[in-house]
């Protein structure tokens, strides 16, 4: 079973040299820590930056330089700033190769819900709807079960949707799934996780090929 950093580490293996990548808030942010050496990746922050670097050293924070999570950040050589319209323009135009974000629920046909819980205070969708509607490749980082032990990989989402038919891959504490043909296709098991654990934690249609191996981190 993976912890948050394990999920981030596994997702980092999906990041290839030369990619432009948008990382959401939470676990996706951690992915930046595990991008392999020798791979050159440009991180896009949808508030208007390409070439996001690590957090600043203490005393070097700049109020004018934040990421989409409103955290102080730095830039790397070759970065570029731009306004919010161009930022979402390049997202919609498919120029961002990979989007990694969190989710509350994903359905077997790739619908995603991650912005609103009826009855609770709604904070807003931010850029999530634009990202999921536009990205060529979307990987979701999430816990597979909620605190009541219920699966969040569903037949169909119960929460209001963020986007439809868009999630391509999911990495959870239990495994890696490809979403296609209306099912969650198990690609890899997390270390120490049995197929039985995975079946119990998946409400939607699950496809398990005979040769599912444990993931390497």
């Amino acid at each position: 079973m993976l912890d948050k950093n394990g999920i981030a580490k596994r997702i980092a293996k999906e990041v290839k040299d030369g990619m432009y990548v948008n990382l959401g808030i939470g676990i996706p942010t951690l992915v930046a820590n595990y991008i392999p050496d020798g791979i050159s990746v440009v991180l896009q922050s949808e508030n208007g930056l390409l070439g996001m670097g690590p957090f600043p050293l203490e005393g070097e924070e700049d109020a004018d330089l934040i990421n989409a999570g409103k955290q102080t950040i730095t830039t790397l050589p070759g970065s570029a700033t731009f306004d919010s319209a161009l930022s979402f323009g390049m997202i919609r135009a498919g120029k961002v190769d990979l989007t990694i974000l969190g989710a509350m629920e994903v359905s077997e046909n790739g619908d995603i819900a991650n912005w609103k819980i009826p009855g609770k205070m709604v904070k807003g969708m931010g850029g999530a709807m634009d990202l999921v509607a536009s990205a060529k490749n979307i990987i979701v980082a999430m816990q597979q079960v909620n605190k009541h032990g219920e699966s969040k990989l569903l037949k169909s989402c119960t929460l209001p949707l963020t986007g439809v038919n868009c999630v391509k891959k999911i990495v959870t504490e239990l495994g890696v799934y490809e979403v296609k043909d209306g099912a969650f296709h198990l690609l890899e098991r997390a270390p120490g996780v049995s197929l039985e654990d995975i079946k119990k934690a998946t409400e939607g249609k699950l496809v398990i090929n005979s040769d599912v191996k444990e993931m390497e981190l």
Partner: protein
Amino acid sequence: MKKVVAHADEAVQDIKEGMTLMLGGFGLCGIPENCISALVKKGVKNLTCISNNAGVDDFGIGLMLQQKQVKKMISSYVGENAEFERQLLSGELEVELIPQGTLATRCMAAGYGMPAIFTPAGVGTEVAEGKEIRKFNGKDYLMELAFEADFAIVKAWKGDTMGNLIYKWTARNFNPVMAMGGKITIAEVEELVPAGELDPDQIHTPGIYVHRIFQGKNYEKRIEQRTVRFENKTI
């Protein structure tokens, strides 16, 4: 060509009850602090505010919310703001949440003279309700209308007496697109210079979009999420 005004009070003097305002900024980054203070001082009420966020309790648009000056917020994310939440739940405040890219593009559309734009954001969600859906190359898009505001209020790093603006880092965010979307656009800048001092090739917002400009003062530039790393750790 008289665009320079003395201070924020003069810039906002004819903003009236019931008007629609665009306010630049992302979180607390790049917000027009001086104009927000002047609006609070002026006490004008019943405003519709188009702004990506709604500030925090004691800063940014949060200050206007405290004075109950806002009738409606049009935003993509309203963040952590107790007074905002109280007013929303009590029904005093109306909120329209729209996707961030749609918000930015609808402002830009006004500045580009485009009455509507097409975006895939929100297709298949409650955002699409009541909106026209149209297929291009096999993909569905929503038609969204341009935003125009009675006043757009933006913050830039430098500006000149012709209204040309340059922004700094990610404090640019919504400011350039909102500057284009105002019937009247007010810009407050950290440094106001004479025409001719800024490189024409480096202007982010050409002065044709800016009607009033002044050099602001006492910028607090509050940081919402101060996050630092320690040596030898990446994040």
